[in-house]
C-alpha cells in the first residue's frame, strides 16, 4: 500500500505575534495511509491543517504535495489538486440543503462556463446530472439518503459532521484532511466514523490525514501517529509506540516531577 510520499512538510514554522504556534515541524504522509496528529489543546494541530489548506502562510518551511510545492498556491487552488478538508467546528453552507452542499463539493469538477449556465444549455444540464450521480454515490456510501433534501441548519450535530465528510468526498480527493472527525459524536456515531474512515482509505484509496483526540478511534484506524506539544514534534510511530512514549503522557498529564513544583510552598 505505502508507495511513496504524498505530502511532506519540511521544517514548518509559524509565528503569530509573539506566539510560536508551530515550530520546525517535519513529517511525511505516505500514499494510502491514515496519518493522525494528536496532542493537547494548543499543540498546533489545527494550525498545521490550516497551513496545508493555505489559510495561513508559514513563517518558514515548505510543504510539498505530490511533488509540487504547495506554498505557491492560493487557498482556492488547493481543492483542484485533490486535497479536501473538514473543519473542527463544522463549516457547512447552513442555508442550503444537504444535496446542495454536496454539489458545491463538485465545484472543482464543473464542466461548463458562465454563459452556458446562464442559458442552461444541454451541456450544463448533462453536467448537472453527472454531478448528481457522483453526489448520490457519496450519499449511498455515508447513508445520508433521508437527509438529502433537508436544510443543514435544521440537522443535528452528528449528521452535520457526516455531511461535512460527504462534501469533502464529493471533491474526489486524493488526500483528505479531517479535523477532529469524532468531536461531538456519541459512541455509536464514533464507531460509524471509524468504519467510514477505513472504508474511505481501503475502497476509495484516499489518503487520510486527521487530527483526533479520541485515542480509541486513533488506535483503531491510524497507521501512524504524530504527537505534538507546544508546536513541536514529540513522537512519531505506530499508535502503540506513540502511546508508550514517555513524553506523550507527560505532555497530557504533566511529569511526575512537576507535581512538586505545583505544591504550595510553606511561607
Amino acid at each position, binding site marked *: 500500500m505505502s508507495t511513496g510520499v504524498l505530502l511532506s512538510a519540511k521544517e514548518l514554522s509559524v509565528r503569530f505575534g509573539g506566539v510560536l504556534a508551530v515550530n520546525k515541524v517535519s513529517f511525511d504522509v505516505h500514499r494510502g495511509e491514515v496519518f493522525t496528529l494528536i496532542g493537547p489543546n494548543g499543540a498546533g494541530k489545527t494550525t498545521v491543517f490550516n497551513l496545508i489548506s493555505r489559510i495561513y502562510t508559514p513563517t518558514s518551511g515548505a510543504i510539498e504535495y505530490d511533488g509540487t510545492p504547495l506554498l505557491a498556491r492560493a487557498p482556492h487552488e488547493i481543492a483542484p489538486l485533490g486535497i479536501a478538508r473538514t473543519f473542527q*467546528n463544522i463549516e*457547512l453552507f447552513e442555508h442550503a440543503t444537504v444535496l446542495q452542499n454536496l454539489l458545491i463539493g463538485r465545484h472543482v469538477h464543473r464542466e461548463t462556463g458562465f454563459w452556458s*449556465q446562464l442559458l442552461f444549455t444541454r451541456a450544463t444540464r448533462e453536467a448537472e446530472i453527472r454531478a448528481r450521480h457522483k453526489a448520490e454515490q457519496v450519499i449511498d456510501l455515508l447513508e445520508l439518503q433521508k437527509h438529502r433534501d433537508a436544510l443543514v441548519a435544521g440537522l443535528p450535530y452528528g449528521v452535520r459532521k457526516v455531511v461535512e465528510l460527504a462534501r469533502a468526498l464529493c471533491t474526489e480527493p486524493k488526500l483528505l484532511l479531517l479535523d477532529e472527525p469524532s468531536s461531538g459524536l456519541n459512541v455509536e456515531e464514533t464507531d460509524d466514523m471509524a468504519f467510514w474512515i477505513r472504508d474511505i482509505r481501503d475502497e476509495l484509496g484516499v489518503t487520510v490525514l486527521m487530527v483526533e483526540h479520541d485515542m480509541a478511534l486513533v488506535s483503531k484506524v491510524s497507521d501512524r501517529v504524530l504527537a505534538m506539544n507546544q508546536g513541536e514534534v514529540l513522537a512519531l510511530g505506530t499508535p502503540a509506540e506513540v502511546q508508550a512514549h514517555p513524553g506523550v503522557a507527560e505532555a497530557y498529564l504533566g511529569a511526575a516531577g512537576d507535581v512538586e513544583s505545583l505544591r504550595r510552598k510553606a511561607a
Partner: protein
Amino acid sequence: MRFIFKTNYEQDIRLAKHGGQVFWYAALLLALLLAPAIVSEYWLAQVTFILIYGIVGLGLMLLSGFTGQFSLGHAAFLGVGAYAQAALTGAGVPFALAIAAAAGIAAAVGVIVGLPALRLKGIYLGIATLAFGFIVEEVFARWESVTGGNAGKHLKDPSLFGITIESGEAFYYLCLVLAVLATLGVLNLLRSPTGRAFVAIRDSEISAQSMGIQLARFKTLSFAISAALAGVGGALYAHKLKFISPDQFGVLQSIDLILMVVIGGLGSVHGAFLGAIFLITMPQVIALAKDHLPDAIALAPGLQGVVYGVVLIAFVLFEPLGLYGRWLKLRTWFQLFPFYRRGMFRRQKAFQKSERLR
C-alpha cells in the same frame, strides 16, 4: 396533500417541480399577457413599474440574498444604466444595442465596486457602497455634457427594429419580456455551479475557498450581474419616466431597493417581485388611507417614511424571511392541512460557529 415521487434526477433540475406549478405560472403569465386589456392605463403603468423594479430587485437579490454582499448604493447602478441609455439613445443608437450597452457599462462599474468588496465585509461593505452611491450621484450632477446636470435629461421613445414604442402597452410588453428573461437567467444560474458558488460564499467564505471556489472571481461576478440587471432596470426606468435627474438615484432610492429585497424575502427569487409589488403599491395604499385618517396624521410630512420604517422593523422582527417566507408558511399550511405545526419553520441556532478563522 401532495407527495412528489421522484424517479429521475431531471425532476430536481427542472424549474417547475410539479404540474401545479406549471399551471399556476402559466396562469400568471397569461394574466400578465392579457393585463393591458383588463386593467386601466394607470394600473398598467404601475405593473410596468413593478416589472422594472422586479428586474432591479433580482439583481440585488442575487448580490445580497444569495451572495451575502450588501449594497447600500444600488441606485447608483440604476442611475448608470439610466444615463447610459439616455446618452446612447440620444446619440441615435438603436434601443436593443443601447440597453445591452447600458447593462454592460453598469456591469463594468459593478466590477470596479466589487474589487474593494473583496476586502470588506458586512457593515464596512455597506458603508463603502453607500459612499460609492454618493460619488455617482455627484458625478451625475456635475458631468453636465453627458447627464445634463441637475436640470435633468429627456429621453426619446425607444424604437425597436424601426418601430417606435410610443404606447404604454407596447412598452409594458417590452418590460414583461425582459423581466421574464432576467428571471429565467437568474433561475438558471441558481441551479448551476455558479449559483451554488454564490450561496457557498454567503454561508461560509472559509469553506467555500477550501472547496475550490475563487472568492475574488465569484464575488466580482455577482457584483457584475447584479449591476447589469440594475442597469437594464435603470434603462427601462428612464424610458418609462422619459425624464431623469440625479436626485432620482440618490440614497433614498438605494434604501427603497434594500427595503424591497428585505421585505420581499432575502434569498428567494419570488421575493424580488413580491418586494417590488410592495414598493409600488404601498404609496397608493397610503394615499387611500389618508382619506380616512385625521388631518394631523394625513397631512404630516414623512408619513410614507414612517410607514415604510414600521413595516421594515415589523418584518425584521416577526418575519425575517419576508413576504415570500409568509407565503411559504401559508402554502405549507394548506399542503399539510390539518397537520401544520407552529414550530415548523423555526431554525436551530448555530452556537458552534467557528470564530477562529474569521
